[in-house]
């Protein structure tokens, strides 16, 4: 029993590494986090513009980035949502379940 502490710790480290992945996984997550920030900025701007055109006295600032800064692909913009291609779409959706659905943020 006393010697189980070492293999138990090694097992936990292994399980942890299995879940978090390696350095490339981490970089992919960081790219997705940046994509999400860009998507949020675009969504906020479009929502603001919609309200300004509806008569609200808002200043919406400059038009934000509307393309993926890593792949240069344009974000998909519709009347109701803005979407991007995430590398880890499942993880992103899991981390932000109330905000991201199928790679898209709904416009208010």
């Amino acid at each position: 029993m006393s010697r189980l502490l070492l293999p138990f710790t090694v097992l936990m480290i292994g399980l942890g590494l299995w879940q978090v992945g390696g350095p490339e996984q981490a970089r992919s997550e960081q790219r997705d986090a940046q994509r999400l920030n860009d998507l949020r900025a675009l969504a906020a701007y479009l929502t603001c513009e919609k309200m300004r055109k509806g008569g609200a006295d808002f200043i919406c600032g400059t038009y934000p980035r509307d393309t993926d800064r890593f792949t240069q692909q344009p974000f998909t913009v519709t009347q109701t949502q803005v979407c991007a291609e995430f590398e880890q779409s499942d993880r992103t959706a899991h981390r932000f379940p109330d905000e991201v659905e199928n790679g898209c943020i709904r416009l208010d």
Partner: protein
Amino acid sequence: MPCLYGLMFVALLTVTYNLIDLGFNLIELWLPDPLYSERGFGNLGAMRWSIAVLVVALPVFLWLDRRAARALSDDPGQRRAPLRQKFGAMTLFLSVLALLGAAVAVVYAGLTGVVTTQFLAKVALVVLLALLVIAWFRDFLAEP
């Protein structure tokens, strides 16, 4: 020798704390509780930190343990050295406190209705780790 046991104590505390932290994050990922916000993959940063600490602290602890064992084989009288006894006793004390804390947490959770699978898994992890540490240090303190 005081430095050796002091470092060993700190290394062990570091290993056990980060084992608990990593274990809790993994449990929350695998057994999400819908009553609370799903942090899930949002804890990846915390898990990576725990793994990094364990990768460094575990070999340090093992190395210090080997050094202590070698010192003991050179001078068996070390087994009764006051600092060694204190180090072992403090470690056992904290482990028993952890077990008692886990017992209190279970009773409290039962009273407040939050005895979920996730909660029980976390308690089991704390109990398991406390028992492993107690077993390790029983050998550490035991007479040959």
